[in-house]
């Protein structure tokens, strides 16, 4: 029996039994909710942003469904907490008293005045918050009032307010970064200059999720009008991972990172941790399924760590950061080609049409008619393949009239595509569209060429980088 890994974290001095925190959002609106979340297993919670109470609209949320799955992407126009400040502070104190081992972070947003920030910092820390998250990321509503992303999009404001907070704060200060900016590292660096102890990334992305095609009103509909909101959920994970990687690998901005953005499973969490995050925050998945999802996040993470032999989170945190590099440092001599396992192929021919229409025309349906080598013009093209089927005469097989069929259910050879490995560029597309796991694999082929990157090639004078032209 392998030793049970320890998944507790010490994030910038904040202790938590596990790396799974709830993000500042509706699931952390009040003490009653957060206590239930801790009972379910969540390690920490970032309180729904406190400040001057606001008035919300209805409706507030909208989402994108995909292929029958609900909420692939989620959008909200809800503002910060609409509850009185003193109620939130009283509940923070109560939660902290009853759940001393869980991390409770106060998310803060007030007008851009030094005294206002000093006051709220003192109030939150007096209530017992383990840390402070500065909401410089909220992209809707609050930004119109000079708060949220209006601060987070300007490095000088970010640095200044972070510094004000640090003048007063005795607990760790986390700056929450907005993705609605061309280079997230600029703001991370400003936060670091301001003295931040950590950053959390990413906040939601400006979005319009869709339009009702009957009323022509975008969603969410507030009495006939809509407003851009903040986009999150599974759809944003790749964007978040990239931004986390950018911050993690930037010497001027590197701070402990709280990963946020589309995390719904233990696998998502592991990916963020591999790119350097110390803990992760979750919102949309909980809004979809409830606090109970943390059970498998803990279980799956633990099982994976056992399988991989990791004793603690620090054992694998950041291991993938050095595996991301600039394109110019990629090995141009590395070559892979697609390999179709014909025993697994079910004959859907999705790889064939994807390669013909979306890639490099090197997968062919010529297993029966015999391979044709040579230029692409010699091969039967997709429209001709379909036309042949449409022109064929098919009849219902009737045993009495036709005799017994072989009854076999193997994929007919004619439907198993062939990869022309001499033409295959190793783009991966066929393996991505193939619905069968491990059916199409990308296999390395020895080229005999020595490893060489674009940077090395240009440095050696073999190629001249093309002049940059403006379009």
């Amino acid at each position, binding site marked *: 029996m392998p030793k049970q890994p320890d998944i507790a974290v010490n994030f910038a001095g904040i202790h938590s039994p596990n790396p799974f925190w709830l993000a500042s959002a509706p699931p952390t609106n009040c003490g009653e909710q957060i206590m239930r979340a801790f009972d379910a297993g969540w390690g920490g919670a970032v309180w729904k942003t406190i400040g001057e109470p606001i008035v919300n609209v209805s409706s507030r949320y909208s989402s994108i469904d995909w292929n*029958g799955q609900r909420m692939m992407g989620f959008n909200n126009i809800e503002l910060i907490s609409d509850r009185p400040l003193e109620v939130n502070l009283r509940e923070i104190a109560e939660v902290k008293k009853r759940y001393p081992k869980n991390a409770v972070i106060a998310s803060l947003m007030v007008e851009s005045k030094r005294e206002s920030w000093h006051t709220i910092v003192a109030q939150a820390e007096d209530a017992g918050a383990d840390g402070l998250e500065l909401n410089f990321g909220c992209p809707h509503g609050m930004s119109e009032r000079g708060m949220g992303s209006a601060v987070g999009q300007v490095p000088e404001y970010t640095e200044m307010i972070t510094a004000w907070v640090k003048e007063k704060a005795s607990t760790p200060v986390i700056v929450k970064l907005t993705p609605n900016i061309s280079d997230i590292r600029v703001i991370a660096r400003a936060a670091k200059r301001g003295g931040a102890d950590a950053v959390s990334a990413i906040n939601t992305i400006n979005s319009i999720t869709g339009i009702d095609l009957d009323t022509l009103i975008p969603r969410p509909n507030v009495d006939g009008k809509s407003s851009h909101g903040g986009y999150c959920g599974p759809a944003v994970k790749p964007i978040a991972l990239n931004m986390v990687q950018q911050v993690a690998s930037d010497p001027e901005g590197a701070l402990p990172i709280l990963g946020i953005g589309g995390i719904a499973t233990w696998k998502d969490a592991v990916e963020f941790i591999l790119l350097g995050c110390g803990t992760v925050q979750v919102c949309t998945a909980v809004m979809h399924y409830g606090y109970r999802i943390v059970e498998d996040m803990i279980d799956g993470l633990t099982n994976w760590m056992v399988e991989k032999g990791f004793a603690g989170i620090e054992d694998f945190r950041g291991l993938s950061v050095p595996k991301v590099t600039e394109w110019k440092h990629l090995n141009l001599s590395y070559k892979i080609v697609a390999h179709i396992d014909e025993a697994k192929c079910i004959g859907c021919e999705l790889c064939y049409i994807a390669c013909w229409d979306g890639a490099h025309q090197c997968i062919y349906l010529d297993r029966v008619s015999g391979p044709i080598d040579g230029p692409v013009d010699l091969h039967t093209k997709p429209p001709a393949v379909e036309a042949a*089927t449409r*022109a064929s005469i098919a009849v219902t097989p*009737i045993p009495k009239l036709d005799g017994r069929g072989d009854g076999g259910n193997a994929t007919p050879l004619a439907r198993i595509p062939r990869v022309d490995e001499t033409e295959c560029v190793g783009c991966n597309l066929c393996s991505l569209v193939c619905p069968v796991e491990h059916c199409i694999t990308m296999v390395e082929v020895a080229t005999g060429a020595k490893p060489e990157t674009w940077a090395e090639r240009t440095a050696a004078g073999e190629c001249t980088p093309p002049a940059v032209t403006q379009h």
Partner: protein
Amino acid sequence: MQQSKEIAERFPDLHPPFEAQAAIAEANRCLNCFDAPCTGACPTHIDVPRFIGKIARDNLRGSALTILDANVLGASCSRVCPVDVLCEGACVLHRYNKKPIEIARLQRFAMDGFHAAGGTLGRKSREERPEKIACIGAGPASLACAAELRQCGFQATVFERRPLPGGLNTYGVAEYKLPAHASLEEIELIRGLGVEFRYETEIRTQEDLVTLEREFDRLFLGVGLGAAHRLGIPGDDHRDVIDALQFIARYKTADPPAVAESVAVIGAGNTAIDAANAARRLGASNVAILYRRGERHMSAFAFEYEHAKQEGVQFQWRVMPVKIDSDERGICSIECVRVAIGENGVLAAVPGSNFHFACQQVIYAIGQSPLLELLSACRGVELSHGRVVVNRATGATSNPKYFAGGDCVNGGREVVDAVADGKRAGIGIAQVLKVAPQRTSSPGAPEAAHA
């Protein structure tokens, strides 16, 4: 025509329609294969991934029109096709997670939506052409042929000896698969195109045909098969010895027939099973299918056999009826003899193995003869084994005036095969007439029509 309350209760949908949410979930499982095997397996080559994708993408009208473009009887085919051996049998998911897409139910979902929304068939060409085509028989082959021609602007008239159109779709399909009223609703769309129907007009003799040849530029033979084979044993002329197709037609389109306590069904094809199941549902407590060969040789589809067993139909293998015994009250029993199957599949009665199967009704479904009387009256139309010989791609017969399709050509297959034949013939006729446009004015000169 409405389904009677009794029939509705006794013959509820075997495959209930999808709810909208379930249809969309199912549609989203479709992989959207390229050159999809389901499309290839469908005799009418319905673009299955395309119509399923349109269901998933909330384009129900587009979905139905995709189906109708390939198969004008897409609604009835969705209910009657033996999809296990057609589209669903070809689904690649058999090799993936063993759960093929429920193509038939999705097709029905699209077609039900189309009918509920009052959809109508569109034309393929706005051109109005003078040429007239007579389609003989109002079964699926003729309907598909007439619809195709009318959609291309030709004048199509359907001749039917019975009072209702649809052929076996209306008179011969088990009611739990396709109620007669659903068949008739679908045909209303074809009438809506402007196809003319002449009911209770039997084309039987050479004189009838000559008259049609004068009036019409082309004739399409979609006459199906003829009379059922009789048992040919003593007592088979008793009034309670019934032809399965007549039995089915009667319960579908007239008052449900009285069914005896115990019924013997002779034959083990799909019609025999439909009749046996119907006898059960109409109240017979004991229904047995008697078949001279074994289970492995029955011509019914495997899923039909399974269904019959669930309906409580019993099967007796390797038995042959030899005599029907009756008294003044009616049939008492059917005398059978056991059969031994020799090396080469030759059947031989086992001497002394005779036994009596007690029953009060005998339904026979041992095949139909070709309509030889009519077919041999079609001058210059070559026949082979009682079937009309055609060019499969165009439906053209050896007489350029005549085209043919459906059971009279293929010996008795499925509705979808007849639709495919009819459609190909419709296209074939349109091509010939477009190459050599004409209107028949000189009577009795079919050769002149040769293109």
